[in-house]
C-alpha cells in the first residue's frame, strides 16, 4: 500500500542544469576523477616531506662532506672525507660511544620497565583502569620537557628528596658508594651519568609503553590459550609466543628511546658531568665554533646507528609476523 502512495506522489520538478551550483558540479567532476583527488590530497604532505624533510637531510649529508679550514675558520665547499676523519678522532669517538652506550642502557631499562606495565594494560586491565593508566603514562608529556628535566635536577640534587631519603634511612654511605663508582658516578646524583640515565629513562618511558601496548593488544587471547593447551607453561608461552609477537612493539619503542637519547642535549646538559653527548657536540660545533661540517657529521652518526639497528632487528625477525 505504501508503494502505491509513493508512486502516486508527484515528483519534485527539477531541471538539473539550472539548479546545480558550481560546488555540486565540482563534486561530480572530482567523483569521476579519483586519481586527481588522490593527487590533490597527497600533494601538500608529499611536498613538505620531500622538500623540507628529505631536502634538509640531504643538505646535512652534503655539509658533512665539506670541511672547516682551521686557519681561516671558513667552511671549504669541496668534497672531502676530512671531517669524517676528524669524527673518528679518539676525543670525538669517545662522545659517540658514550652517547650510544647511554642510549642502549636507557632503551633496555625502558623496555624492562615498560613491558610488565604494557602487558598488564593490554591483557588484564579493565577498560576503565586501562584508560586511567594510559592517561597516567601520557600525562607527563603535557608538561614541558625542560621543566621535567630540571625537576629531576632538584629531585636528584644532594639536598633533594633522594639524598634526604638516604640520609633518613642512614644509607648515605651506600649512595656515596654508588656515586664513587667510576664511569657512572659523580659528586652528586644531579651531576653524574647515573643521574642523566635516570632522567632519560623517565622522560622516554611513555614512548616505549605505548607501542608495546599496541603490539600486545593485537595478540589474540586464543594464541596464549593455544600455547598453554599444547603444554607450554607461562614462562614458555611468554618466551615462544608473547615475546616474539610483541617484539615489533619493543623495536618500535626502542627506536624512539634510542634515537631520542642519541640526539638529546638537554638532559646531559642539566644532569651530566662535563663530558659531552652527541647532541651537545652538534650544538657546540654548529654554534660557538662554527664548524658546521663536523656538526653535520655528528648528526649523521645517529642516522647510521639507527639504520644498522633496524637492519639487525629485521634480521632477528622482529617484523616477521607482519
Amino acid at each position, binding site marked *: 500500500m505504501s508503494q502505491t502512495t509513493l508512486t502516486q506522489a508527484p515528483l519534485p520538478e527539477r531541471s538539473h542544469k539550472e539548479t546545480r551550483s558550481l560546488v555540486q558540479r565540482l563534486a561530480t567532476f572530482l567523483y569521476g576523477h579519483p586519481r586527481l583527488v588522490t593527487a590533490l590530497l597527497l600533494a601538500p604532505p608529499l611536498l613538505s616531506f620531500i622538500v623540507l624533510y628529505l631536502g634538509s637531510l640531504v643538505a646535512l649529508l652534503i655539509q658533512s662532506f665539506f670541511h672547516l679550514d682551521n686557519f681561516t675558520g671558513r667552511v671549504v665547499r669541496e668534497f672531502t672525507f676530512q671531517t669524517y676523519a676528524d669524527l673518528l678522532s679518539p676525543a670525538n669517538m669517545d662522545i659517540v660511544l658514550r652517547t650510544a652506550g647511554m642510549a642502549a642502557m636507557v632503551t633496555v631499562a625502558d623496555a624492562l620497565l615498560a613491558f610488565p606495565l604494557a602487558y598488564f594494560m593490554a591483557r588484564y586491565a579493565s577498560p576503565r583502569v586501562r584508560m586511567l593508566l594510559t592517561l597516567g603514562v601520557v600525562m607527563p608529556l603535557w608538561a614541558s620537557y625542560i621543566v621535567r628535566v630540571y625537576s629531576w635536577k632538584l629531585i636528584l640534587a644532594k639536598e633533594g628528596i633522594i639524598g634526604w631519603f638516604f640520609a633518613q634511612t642512614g644509607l648515605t654511605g651506600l649512595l656515596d658508594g654508588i656515586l664513587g663508582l667510576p664511569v657512572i658516578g659523580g659528586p652528586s646524583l644531579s651531576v653524574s651519568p647515573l643521574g642523566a640515565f635516570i632522567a632519560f629513562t623517565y622522560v622516554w618511558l611513555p614512548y616505549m609503553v605505548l607501542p608495546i601496548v599496541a603490539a600486545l593488544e593485537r595478540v589474540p587471547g586464543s594464541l596464549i590459550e*593455544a600455547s598453554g593447551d599444547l603444554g607450554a607453561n607461562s614462562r614458555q608461552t611468554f618466551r615462544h609466543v608473547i615475546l616474539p*609477537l610483541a617484539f615489533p612493539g619493543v623495536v618500535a619503542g626502542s627506536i624512539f628511546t634510542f634515537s631520542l637519547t642519541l640526539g638529546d642535549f638537554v638532559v646531559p646538559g642539566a644532569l651530566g658531568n662535563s663530558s659531552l653527548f652527541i647532541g651537545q657536540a652538534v650544538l657546540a660545533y654548529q654554534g660557538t665554533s662554527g664548524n658546521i661540517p663536523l656538526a653535520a657529521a655528528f648528526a649523521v652518526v645517529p642516522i647510521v646507528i639507527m639504520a644498522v639497528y633496524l637492519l639487525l632487528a629485521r634480521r632477528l625477525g622482529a617484523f616477521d609476523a607482519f
Partner: protein
Amino acid sequence: MQRATDEPPTDEPPTMDMDTRRRTTGDRAEGESASVVENKTPVPAVSFHNVSKRFGDVHAVDNVSLDIQDGEFFSMLGPSGSGKTTCLRLIAGFEQPTSGSIRLHGIEAAGLPPFERDVNTVFQDYALFPHMSVLENVAYGLMIKKVPRRERLKTANEMLDLVRLPGMGQRKPSQLSGGQRQRVALARSLVNHPRVLLLDEPLGALDFKLREQMQIELKSIQKQVGITFVYVTHDQQEALTMSDRLVVFNLGRIEQLGTPSDIYERPATEFVAGFVGVSNLVSGPLAEQMSGVSGTFSIRPEKIHLAAASAAVQPGYCCVQGSVRDVVYLGMYTRYLVDVDGGGDLTVVEQNLHTTSMNVLAAKGNRVSLLWAREHMRLVGSETGDQRTANYSIGQGQSEHG
C-alpha cells in the same frame, strides 16, 4: 574458491598404526592406557558431575552431569550462549568450574592448568602462531616437550601428511586458505597424541562444500587415531552426521543426550524438536483431536504425506484436512505450508521424485489431506498452549544448498 586449493579426498590418508602412536607418545604410561582397555566398566574419558559455571550473574553452565566414553565422537550441540563452548573450555582448563567436579580419565581436573591436562584443543579461529611456519606450528607441542629438533620435525611432517597437507610445512599460516589453516590446527593439536581432542566449531568459518568434505575427513581421522573427540557445534546437521553420541544444550542445561537417531527421531523436549532439524509442534485442541491426549507433539515435516482431500486413512494413521497456503520449490524437494482446518498450520516436505516445479506450484490453494503414522508423533511437553509450528533457520539454510 576454497575448493581449488584444497584437494578433494581422493586417496586414502597415510595410516597411523598403533606402533607409531606408541613410539611418538613416548613418556606416557603404557600401563595406564592398557588398564583402561582391560577394565570391564571403562572409566569415562570426561566426566562432569553437577558442574556449574557462573560469570557474574550469568549461569553459563547450570548443573551439568554427563559422561563421555573413551574413543567416542561426542558432540555438544546448541545455539550460541547455550553453554556448550564453556563446557569445552572447562574440559580444556581455560575455565574452572564454579561448583561440581570434572574428571578426566578418572582423575579430578579441578585446579589443573591447561598445560597439565592430556587434552588438546582445535580453536574456532584456529589460533595458529603467525610468526611460525606451518611446520613449526605443528611441532610446537613437541618443542615444548623438548623432543629433539630432527625427531619433532619428522613427526610434524607425518602429521601434515595425515591431514593431507604434505609439503606445506615451510609456508606461513597467512599464506594458507581457511580450510588449510583448519587442517594445520588439527595437526598441531594431534601431534601430542592427547587422549581427548576438543574441537570448538572448527568448521564454522568454512564454506558449505568444504565443510561437508572436512566432516568426512574429521570422522576418518578420528577413527584412525582412536582419540576421544569432543566436538562443539551449533550446526545440527554436522552433529548428526559425525557423532557417536551428542548432547543438546540450551540455556546452560542439558536438553537431551543420545545417539543422533535418538535425538532426531525421539526428541525429548520441544526445544530439541525445534532445534535439531525442522519440526511441527502441535498442541492444544488440534493435538487432542489428532491423538486424544492433551500436550505438545512434534512431527517432522518429511513424515507427513500430502494426499488428495478424499484419500482413505489407513489404520494407525492420523489425518487432518487443510488447504495449501504456500509452496516453496527447493529443487530436490518442495516445502508446503498447509493451513489446517480448525486453526494452525503444518509444514510438509515432499521429495520431488515424480513432480516438477510446475506440478508442485500449481498445488497452491488446493484442498488436501495430511497423513502420518501415529508413531511419528512425539510427545515433547505436556503443558497446554496454542498450536505452534517451529521452523528453525538451520533447516531452511540447509535446503538452500541442496
